[in-house]
């Protein structure tokens, strides 16, 4: 038996910190199905009141960019500072920008 077969499937966990924020990737865990994955995520990742909503996604459903493509994918944007909205004054009281 291979190691993969002995383990429960791997799940990626996303937590929404509070209303209005995005779900953020916080880590991964093992569970036999999505119900257990959410329950485990609640216990492992929201013990200190970190969130109000949980998403779990089977890790093998995630498609990732190839690290070898790093140069062509990400370097071109580094010289384009004008894409950042840094030339505006942010009004008082606006957060999460």
């Amino acid at each position, binding site marked *: 038996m291979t190691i993969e077969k002995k383990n*429960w499937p791997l799940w990626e966990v996303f937590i929404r910190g509070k209303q209005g924020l995005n779900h953020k990737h916080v880590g991964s*865990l*093992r*569970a*036999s199905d999505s*119900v*257990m994955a959410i*329950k*485990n995520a609640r*216990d*492992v990742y929201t*013990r200190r009141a970190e969130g109000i909503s949980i998403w779990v996604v089977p890790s093998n459903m995630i498609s990732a960019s190839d690290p070898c493509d790093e140069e062509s994918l990400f370097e071109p944007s580094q010289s384009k500072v004008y894409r950042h909205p840094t030339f505006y004054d942010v009004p008082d009281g606006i957060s999460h920008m």
Partner: protein
Amino acid sequence: MTTKEALYKYVLRLGDDSLILGQRLSELCGHGPILEEDIATTNISLDLIGQATLFLEYAGSLSNEFKTNDELAFLRLEKDYLNVLLVEQPNGHFGDTIMRQFLFDAFRLPLLTKLQDSKDNTLSSIAEKALKETKYHLRHSSEWVVRLGDGTEESHHKIQESLNTLYRYSHELFFVDEADVLLQQEAIIPELDDIKSQWSQTIKDVLEMATLSLPTNNWKFEGGRMGRHSEHMGYLLAEMQYMQRTYPNMEW
């Protein structure tokens, strides 16, 4: 017996149930079957110890000697603990731990729901806080009963054995003596009829999903509510009380 004396006894009994089960679950810290479950059982343990803190603090204020919750938790003799025998039973294997928890949670949920309506404000506010935690505990334990019961042949067999062994301790959850009757008459605590039928329904529904069946014998063990404990209790207390007895009055 005055109302105050009856209430002291009742609050102590609820507090001891939480305390001793919390202590049992804390023994699993670092020993859970998987990391995620290790954290889950420890979370539940902390919830229960938190409930015990509230109950024992209240009990302390009702006692004639005004004891602190630490004194009540750590410095009583075995015969002065009033928890049901169910909660002091050893963790055994994971199925035993889960079944013990399930039988307890299925009782605590309807009890705390009703206790919210208590005429006693302190008791009702403790119940309200504990209920939220208990809803999750019951969800956790009943899901596992179903997974193990309706799982593999081996897991089914093991948790059926757990049920056969532990069911005889569950009757004591419905223990009633003169203190309870007095408090029921004054609408400080609920009558147990509704709670028992809700408990039985939960047990029936979950066991059905789990393809498990109740033991056919009618054995009933009790004694804890009156301070008569099983042989496991002394070992549990020895570990739990060690720090307070070795370093009297130490605080965390």
